[in-house]
């Protein structure tokens, strides 16, 4: 019985508060309905802050530092996204790994390390897979060199082979086949004359 009475009292209190609130804030309440943001001041609180993702830190000058960005483009985020740190932290705003790694980069730079040393430090800490591209040393050189080398070797071989075969063909006196396009060329003498005239005009 006492519980029911307590509920009734709470209900009445809330009801009175709502009515009083509506009476005192009539016009303002109407404007609040138009603006879904019921916060106060210039930076009002969002009605549903969770739907904008996790709360973010304010941007610092280090976030826009060109050296930081350049380093972060060379380092991989370890959250499993397969992106570099900069791209991950400025794209996947749910990720908490890339902001942490970013702070680490900034911290290392502020401690006086050079760009290369920061990268080396990441390799020491997280292994070679922390790099977005392997360093061209040891076996990794193959990664960089093989495609170009294969193309160069095949191209050179092809050029030499074709030159040699062409020489052999010429020596054997083999008459080359006509081009498919021209064996079908069928034109009147007047048209052929105009063709020749066009060609000679262009040559001249």
């Amino acid at each position, binding site marked *: 019985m006492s519980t029911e009475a307590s509920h009734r009292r709470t209900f009445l209190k809330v009801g009175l508060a709502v009515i009083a609130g509506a009476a005192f804030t009539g016009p303002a309440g109407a404007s609040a309905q138009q603006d*879904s*943001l019921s916060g106060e001041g*210039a*930076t*009002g*609180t*969002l*009605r*549903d*802050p*969770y*739907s*904008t993702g*996790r709360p*973010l830190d*304010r*941007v610092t000058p280090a976030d*826009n530092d060109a050296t930081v*960005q350049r380093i972060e483009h*060379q380092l*991989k985020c370890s959250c499993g996204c*397969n*992106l*570099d740190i900069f*791209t991950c932290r*400025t*794209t996947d*705003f749910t990720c908490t790994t890339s902001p942490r790694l970013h702070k680490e980069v900034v911290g290392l730079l502020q401690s006086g390390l050079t760009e290369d040393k920061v990268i080396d430090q990441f390799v020491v800490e997280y292994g*070679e*897979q922390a790099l*977005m*591209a*392997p360093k061209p040393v040891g*076996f*990794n050189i193959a*990664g960089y060199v093989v*495609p*170009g080398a294969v*193309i160069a070797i*095949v*191209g050179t071989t*092809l*050029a030499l082979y*074709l030159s040699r075969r*062409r020489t052999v*063909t010429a020596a054997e006196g083999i008459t*080359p*086949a006509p*081009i*498919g*396009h*021209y064996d*079908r*060329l*069928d*034109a009147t003498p007047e048209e052929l004359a105009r*063709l020749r005239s*066009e*060609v000679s005009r*262009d040559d001249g």
Partner: protein
Amino acid sequence: MTLLGSFALWVCWLVGLWAAIVGFSGKWRERPDLTRSLIRSSYAIFGLLLVAALSLWKGLLSHDFNIEYVAAYTSSNLPTYYVVAAFWAGQKGSLLFWAFMLSIFASIAQFTTSRRYADLLPYVAAVTATIVVFFLSAMLFGHENPFERLAFTPADGNGLNPQLQNVAMTIHPPMLYLGYISISIPFAFAVAALLSRRLDTGWLHAIRKWTLVSWFFLSCGITLGMWWAYVELGWGGYWAWDPVENASLLPWLTMTAFLHSVMIQEKRGMLRRWNMTLVIGSFLLSIFGTFITRSGIIASVHSFAQSNVGYFFLAFLVVASIASFTLLYTRWPLLEAEVKLESMLSREAAFLFNNLMLVGIAFSVLWGTLFPILSEWIRGEKITVGPPFFNKVNVPLGILLLMLTGIGPLIAWRKASVSNLRRQFLFPAGLGLLTLIVLLLFGLRDFYVVISLSLAGFVLGTLSQEFYRGTRARHSMYSESYPYALVRLIGRNRRRYGGYIVHLGILCYFVAFCGYAFKTDKEATLKPGDTVQVKSPFGNTYSLTHIGVSQYEALNRVVSAATLDVSRDGKKLGIMKSEKRQHFSEASPGVRKNTFEPSTEVAIRSDLREDLYIVYAGSVDGTEEAVYRITIIPLVWWLWFGGGVLVFGGLVTMWPGGPTARSPRLIGANYGAGLAEAETGAVAG
């Protein structure tokens, strides 16, 4: 419907197996009834897969959440067009989609192929049926049946990943699939030609349109994929050298190589072995791409969930490779070239080196994609091969390819003389040089960008010269006005000039790639009324004033829209809005469940020079104080414009009809084209 769908899949599997066994056994050669049966099996497979596809669509559209696939990829508040597109959103549905589209292509191939190639068609039916059987086996035996039911019925489904809720995702995957799938038809004809030993140019004529169709869909799919990545993913780029992206590029490169080298075979009877290798290789690369996407063997942002289906693809890839190349090896002597190359200074040689570059780039991309696995095998060390690696290796190769794009059309068939070369190269080389000087005068010093744009000038010179000379020839021959002569020139020789239009599109791509080198990023935290200024590489200053963040509900999501008032060099450009979207499912009114993490909608303002790309990253402490990433990317517009040009060029080359051999139209067309070609030096040697 699920029962009917599953039943259709099983019957289709049996019919496909029958067609494959009968087709490859060769028994049909003595039995006309078996031949008819084989051809009809293609139509039967199509009919059965149509039933299966309609069954799945029925399940999706009726929100039958008892079907595991429907519950996994849709929700009751998902817009209908995304429900339709959910067919290919997941592994199971996309496998069915693949098999279904292949059955359509196989039926069209059977129906439209000229009776002249009737002896190839039973083999074609057998090959396409075998591929369908493989896909069905992956579904039925790899636990990927899209009609699988749950033990209970959820009140609502999980919904579609927000990043897939973009109009491009309703078009991009099907386009790419169509590209992959349609390669099966040229492959089927190639295998049919090898099996039947009919290795003249007949099979090439039979697949001419198919190769163009396949290349066209792949091009559209890749470009739409870039557009989707750009507008939806919010990272300010369009190509990340991700393994799945690379997988789509591989068959595109080899198909492009084939489209060039096939001209040499048709005109000169050369490169017959090479062309056969390219067709087989393109098909295997399309399967390889699917294997990468679905096996999870290489980490990718695009991968489907890992499953056993990867083993099916690997097995099929191995078997198909061994069978195809063994068959090619046994027919090797029959594929001897009819004529030899006469000169290294000829269009044939230029095409040959163009092929070398295209296939070389394909190899380079494949090598880079597989290098992490190779490294782990050999050194036991895991490494990452990302964009910096691919850019370093592939940019020089791409530049060489661009150069060859400009050189090829300038050199005569058979043999070019020095005077001819001088005359042909004068204008394009002059334009390239002029571009170089202008760029240097404007202070551009980035080596690759300067070289690329100068070569773009050179290629533009080549293409302009080709169009100009052809048009002038028609104008002087037929007294046609220049615009009409240009239209007639393209219409009468669609393959050649359509190809040039495609080259123009590719040129625009290169211009856009150059612009990407100057991309700039800036982050800012802004309270309402705060302004941030950003300087663009073109020297413009953008001022962005944060207006505020408003929140509202729309359809299946809560939208948080951050708006900015934007001006450039003091001139007002307007309001730009970037959003955060929290999607939810709604089993019953008021009962909501957030389905995914909040996603981002980018605000983009694009013009010929640069894109202003704004991402609302989120808020500070749940207030209107917003964190933005502002990116300026020069010349991106040219990528989408180039895509449009490329599609137009592709359509021109594929447009049906046109002159046939010995028809009066052909004679006229050849004369016009011959005249144009004479001007470009074909008879100069």
